[in-house]
């Protein structure tokens, strides 16, 4: 393939040390980007809906009574850190000679994601306990569609990471694993961006 030399796709570029993936990465990563952009539209519409419904509390509690900035801070820190540790995993894929650093960084990332998900679940439980479960009002519905959907994405990313580690165990770091880690990287960093918008629009915007 003549275009193999000219791979300048976004995300981690594995470079010439990994000639086996070069040709496929171009197409695969672009396809995954397209998917992410489609997903971005989903989130955008949920944000617009949330912005419209934030005042539809139907006599129930609103954002300022429900959100706990401390918990959000921990979640945010965990997720931002996980983006960095995933970056380390990407670099390990690119430069390391053995699978060990890659798996190690993936595990750290998973740990941070677990912290994030744990605190998020705690937040949700808190809201439901305060009588602001999703069926309480339009606002609660919009919240519980938007934020948990992001959480579900993170969870899916975790499942994917575990599946990739299992693949490494069986097949070693082959072409499919490399492509998978690259795409999971895009996914992970994309989710970080969505979270930035969530903590801005939902939490900080609600508490401001």
């Amino acid at each position, binding site marked *: 393939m003549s275009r193999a030399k000219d791979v300048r796709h976004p995300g981690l570029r594995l470079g010439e040390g990994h000639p086996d993936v070069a040709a496929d990465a171009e*197409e695969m990563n*672009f396809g995954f980007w397209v998917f992410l952009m489609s997903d971005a539209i*989903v989130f955008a519409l949920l944000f617009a809906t949330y912005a419209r*419904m934030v005042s539809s509390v139907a006599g129930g509690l609103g954002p300022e009574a429900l959100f706990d900035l401390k918990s959000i801070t921990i979640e945010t820190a965990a997720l931002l850190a996980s983006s960095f540790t995933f970056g380390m995993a990407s670099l390990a894929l690119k430069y390391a000679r053995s699978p060990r650093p890659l798996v190690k960084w993936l595990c750290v990332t998973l740990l941070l994601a677990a912290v994030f998900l744990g605190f998020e679940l705690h937040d949700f439980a808190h809201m439901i306990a305060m009588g602001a479960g999703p*069926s309480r*009002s339009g606002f609660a519905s919009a919240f519980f569609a938007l934020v948990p959907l992001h959480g579900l994405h993170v969870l899916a990313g975790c*499942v994917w990471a575990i599946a990739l580690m299992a693949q490494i165990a069986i097949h070693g770091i082959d072409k499919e694993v490399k492509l998978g880690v690259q795409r999971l990287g895009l996914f992970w960093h994309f989710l970080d961006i969505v979270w930035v918008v969530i903590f801005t629009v939902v939490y900080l915007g609600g508490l401001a």
Partner: protein
Amino acid sequence: MTLHHLLLGRLDLHALPFWTMIEHPTHETIVNGTITTAAAGLEVLAAIVVIALVTRAGKWRYLWSEWLTSVDHKRIGIMYIALSFVMMSRALIEAALMRTQQAFGLGGGFLSPEHFGELFSTHGTIMIFFMAMPFLTGVINFAMPLQIGTRDVSFPVMNSVSLGLTTAGAMMIVISLALGKFSTGGWSGYPPFTEAAFNAGVGPDYWIWAVTLSSLGTMMSGINFAVTIYKRRAPGMTFMRMPLFTWTALCTAILMIFAMPPLTVATAMLALDRYLDFHFFTNGSGGNMMNYANLFWLFGHPEVYILILPAFGVYSEIFSTFSGKLLYGYTSLVLATMAIAVISFAVWLHHFFTMGQNASVNAAFGIATMLVGIPTGVKIYDWILTMFRGRVRFTVPIVYGLGFMMLFVLGGLSGILLANPTLDYQVHNTLFLVAHFHNMLIPGLLFGMLAAYHYWFPKAFGFRLDERWGMISAVSWIVGFMLAFFPLYVIGAMGFPRRTVAYFDPVYRPWMLIALAGAAVVLVALASLFVQLFVSIRRREALAVPAGDPWDGSNLEWAIAAPAPEYNFSVIPDVSDRNPFMIAKQKGDAYQTPAEFQDITMPKNSPLGMALAVAGGALAFGLVWHIWWLVALSCLGVLVAIVGQGFARDCEKVIPAAEVRRQHEAWLRTVAASRAVPRDLEGEPANTGLAARDRFSQAAE
């Protein structure tokens, strides 16, 4: 919770179409029960017959390994179109039933209001999601990779998954005929009517999951097509050398990628409302149904152009081909296509002008809507100018094309009327609107797809379709359409609301009778299509075009044998121009043996598409009937299938160069043995797919 609920959820004997009739035998229940039971019976019978026939022929293995698990874009395309034909048959029969009801609907008619509600809801849902979308997805799947000179789409397995999900969605509608009732909320499913508070039954759930499955499949198709066109064009095929159909496929794909998410969001929110007591669109508790209208049409309007654009591409191909002439205004057409695609994202509000927003908002969206008319008008004139100073052959596709142009401008006229908020306030929700969108979609989409079917059929199967029956069908479609829908403009302007089962003013009746006659003619058109297929298969020897170029085509898809080999191209062609095959023919470079053949790597078959079709279908069925163990099980199935796919290795097979050479040389021998036919023998048995260079001048560009 009883054992019955645990095992079958809310599925019980009342779900059977004849149960109410037995329990409460009244005139109404018996008439409607009999019709539904007969329809469901026919469906079940058809399924049994098909299963029996396949079993008797011992073709299960063949069906599984050659078709159902195939990841070949051509076969997937063909299966999409087959699905589309099946679903079209049902939806057309439903349409005829509705026309009959309305023709006799003065003061009552024979259908119950609920039955009528189901009919217009399934008709609309099927026609949009399971007739039109599969048809155009199938045509793009089949033709686009051939046109850009590649061996398959970018993600062949995902392509098969798309087909699987679409089929699973269609199955939901098929099943709804035999078990339970479908939604009566129309194809747009507006809440709060479709909320649990007003429709607690399974109907809206059937609709939600059928549409959701289809929209997921469509989004994946969109990604697949866009990436394929971006990354897999043959060397030298720059964007401005792409055939017009490929251009429209690209724009359609982009629309699919960005227009499906709003639909998924809208149906998901409606599902959350219904299943988990959320309040997105409910009356009260902070729900806001206006957001549904907003989200649905954020999808719905680009959807209209998803439907129309590929047909525009097809018309561009056939007007050029059957006029024996270059396409007029290629750049113009490309720009117009892109303009339509972009503007289509900025007009959605015109579907709810009457909701109460202020005049400036309405006027802004009205003007944006009319802007779409400009590139569309340009296209029509480009096609007329393509025929100008050409040599027009009145083949079946051209007849569809001419019918399209004459009828489509009338639909465009009524569209401009509707784009005026002032006038929309008068004709919104009336049969005028119904006449308008059928006027756009039947000539605009369906004629285009049928023309494409006729045009590319020889490439798929190696023989042409019978011209005579094709002509009968085309003329019946055109006449039937006019009879069926022009009266609706009149009735609509007389304030007749759409979705009305009965009326009390005799003034409408004469027009309804004309429309009924039109529906009958359309049924003749449908029957002719099936007769045409049957006759063509019978006459396949006489209609065979193994040399591969029955219409004197100019794009790459005609440069290979018919039917196209699995790998499409023995050697990926180098493109240095628009109309590469026509130029090759003019230079005498067509039908060459390449200097060397190479091994070809092709993706292996994959059962993932079928697995997800089954799991997705079971998930939807479980959700509809509240069979929670089935929901859990199928979720697990989906998860296992997707994660498992990641572990699959060795997914490619190699076709040795020697085999490629053998097939290529066999084809060249066929070409050498073929008699080149001039265009006036195009419809005769003499046409074996080799075009004589009788009337063309020299170089094209």
